[in-house]
């Protein structure tokens, strides 16, 4: 009997101690992500996963968030809305994260009401759409870079300075991605005194763009801005423009300022410009890029030759995640309110040249840089300094 009593007391003490230790255990921050690791956006997802993971591993190596290690979990969303949302819900049910990252604009739109009402997690995604940069409606959503409209603004501002009153044409895909900044782009042209002479629409992957190119020539477009394409039909348009004698400057936004586009353009690469949000992997004069390169040499030697802008986007997003977590922790814990406050209070955050010192404004970072392709090196080279919008 005595032995049983001692055993029971021992068990009670152990359980009590375990319970108390659980109560006082420090809460580790948890980040979950749905990346398009397969599917038609996999070109970004494959690098994006590594970018996010590397930034979090680096932060953990440097002590985590005030000594608390960051947990990171991710799943493949296949760039399909239903699969992505299922992965989001699976990750949420399993890990109860403080921060989530989504795979697309579509997924962001579908989840934003629930993030606002139920999940209350800080959220970013592979998107530069306005919905993720509207703090009044969606305070939990943010973009670690400029929105598409802000990118258009940077491009048009650059053109207005170089060539006032120039003839502009928008060439966009008939998709959400393509149409997003067009209405705002029209207004920006008016405000900057630019002459919007044409708007051409084509399908992603379209091979016959003769009509559009001839129309651009007829309307004497001097600058053609692409939106909603990654490669095709940009390459086709530029090749046909050359054939038909259209002398215009072609430009693109973030997803069409990747190295593979220059490789496809060949000698025409010199005639292509764009706006990007982050420094390139080969710009190792910046300390953060140097650090990223060294990290990749050590941890991903097979991929260390080049890392795409999708990697930089995910990496930068993770840096903002970590900064918001640090600030929330200083405010008393990783609550949704603290995370939003922490995010919105980020000011002049030095990210080692990956971007200029970061200040979150309206849940985005409204800054971009104009780059031009170089057919000899196959690289984009900056032709402007960072252009701040606000």
């Amino acid at each position, binding site marked *: 009997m005595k032995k049983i009593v001692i055993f029971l007391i021992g068990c009670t003490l152990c359980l009590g101690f375990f319970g108390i230790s659980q109560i006082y255990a420090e809460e580790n921050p948890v980040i979950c992500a749905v990346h398009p*690791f*397969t599917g038609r956006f996999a070109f970004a997802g*494959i690098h994006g*996963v590594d970018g996010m993971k590397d930034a979090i591993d680096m932060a953990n190596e440097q002590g985590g968030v005030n000594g608390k290690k960051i947990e990171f979990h991710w*799943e*493949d969303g*296949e760039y399909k*809305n*239903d*699969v992505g*949302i*299922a*992965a989001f*819900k*699976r990750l*949420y*049910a*399993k890990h109860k994260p403080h921060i989530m990252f989504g795979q697309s604009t*579509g997924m962001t*739109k*579908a989840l*934003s*009401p*629930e993030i606002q*009402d*139920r999940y209350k997690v800080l959220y970013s995604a592979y998107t530069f759409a306005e919905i993720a940069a509207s703090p009044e409606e969606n305070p939990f959503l943010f973009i670690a870079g400029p929105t598409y409209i802000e990118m258009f603004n940077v491009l048009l501002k650059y053109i207005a300075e170089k060539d006032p009153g120039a003839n502009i044409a928008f060439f966009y895909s*008939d*998709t*959400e991605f393509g*149409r*997003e900044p067009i209405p705002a782009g029209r207004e920006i042209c008016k405000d900057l005194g630019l002459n919007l002479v044409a708007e051409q629409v084509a399908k992603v992957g379209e091979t016959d763009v003769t009509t559009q190119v001839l129309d651009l020539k007829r309307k004497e477009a001097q600058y053609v801005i692409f939106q909603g394409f990654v490669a095709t039909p940009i390459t086709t348009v530029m090749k046909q423009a050359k054939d038909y004698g259209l002398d215009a400057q072609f430009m693109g936004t973030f997803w069409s300022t990747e190295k593979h586009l220059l490789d496809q353009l060949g000698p025409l690469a010199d005639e292509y410009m764009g706006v990007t949000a982050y420094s390139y992997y080969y710009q190792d004069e910046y300390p953060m890029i140097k650090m990223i390169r060294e990290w990749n040499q050590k941890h991903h030697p097979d991929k260390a030759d080049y890392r795409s802008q999708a990697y930089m986007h995910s990496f930068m997003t993770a840096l903002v995640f970590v900064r918001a977590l640090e600030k929330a922790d200083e405010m008393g814990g990783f609550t949704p309110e603290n995370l939003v406050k922490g995010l919105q209070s980020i000011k002049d955050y030095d990210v080692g040249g990956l971007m200029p010192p970061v200040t979150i404004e309206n849940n985005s970072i409204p800054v971009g840089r104009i780059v031009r392709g170089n057919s000899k090196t196959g690289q984009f080279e900056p032709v402007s300094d960072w252009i701040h919008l606000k």
Partner: protein
Amino acid sequence: MRCGDFKETYVRDEEIFQSLFVKFWLGVLAAFLLIFPFIANEYMLYIANMIGFAIIGAVGLNLLTGFTGQISLGHAAFIGVGAYTSAILVTRLGLSFWLSIPLAGLVAASAGMIIGIPSLRVKGLYLCIATLAAQFIFEFIFIHWESMTMGITGINVPPPSIGGFEFNTEKRFYWITLFFVVLGVIYAKNLVRSRMGRAFMAIRDRDLSAEIIGINIFRYKLSAFAISSFYAGVVGALWVFYLKVVTPDHFPLLLSVEYLAMIIVGGLGSILGAIFGGIFMTLVPEIINTLSAALKTIMPGNEAFFEPLKSVVFGMLIILFLIFEPRGLAEIWNRIKNFFRLWPFSY
């Protein structure tokens, strides 16, 4: 001693639940479906809702393709029509969600009847291409009729409610989905036993003969399109209120192909097949995803190898099922049932 299931009257022969065992197992299934939301987590309930939508949509398409023999590639478009109709009715006209569901079904049914008109002239692959037009036409309308559909921005809708009770979580929405699944399946099961259902099958088996024996081909073909599209419209309405947002990219052509795959894998011309197909096409990729997530923990760093394998495994499973049982999962189920009917004395 009587041993076996004898059907000695026509009434007994036409019964849906033909034996005590069927009634017992259906009772068990009903009990499970009622208990499920209390034991499942959010994610499992999300998948359960998605399976429910897939079942309703697949049952609808099976009525058209499996029972009437009319191949349609416009199912996703009709789902979209239902989704936009209910979203517009609720947000613009202030109608309740409950009223918007049948109206969404009716509008989708009207669209289905219009798109189904070519079925009177063309058959098979030609009809398939004619219905493909629905996809392009409606996709264009969803994007470009901005004053009504809000274009690419889409429409946000409030959660459905009764009084002050909002169906704003997976668990609460589960009851709505379950109600419509049960209603849809019971209606379809009864429909195929009726004059109309037999007319559908007669048209599928030989439309010329059907016409000779007095079946109005025009009426029944369009009815099949209308009923199938009604189901699609209801799925669309449920889907939009489940996600609380509708955008044009929710209804790609691939969705129509997926629904066709559901009824082919499940079993053409079988209500049970549509149910199995809906479950298979929704659940199996999720199981594969869960396994791949587990593999990521066991073998970190090999994601680039096994993540793309998911699609290969899923594709292989479909091919294997079709090779070993071309009549679908419903037929496999029948064989299992037959095996146990005389088990353990199957001599």
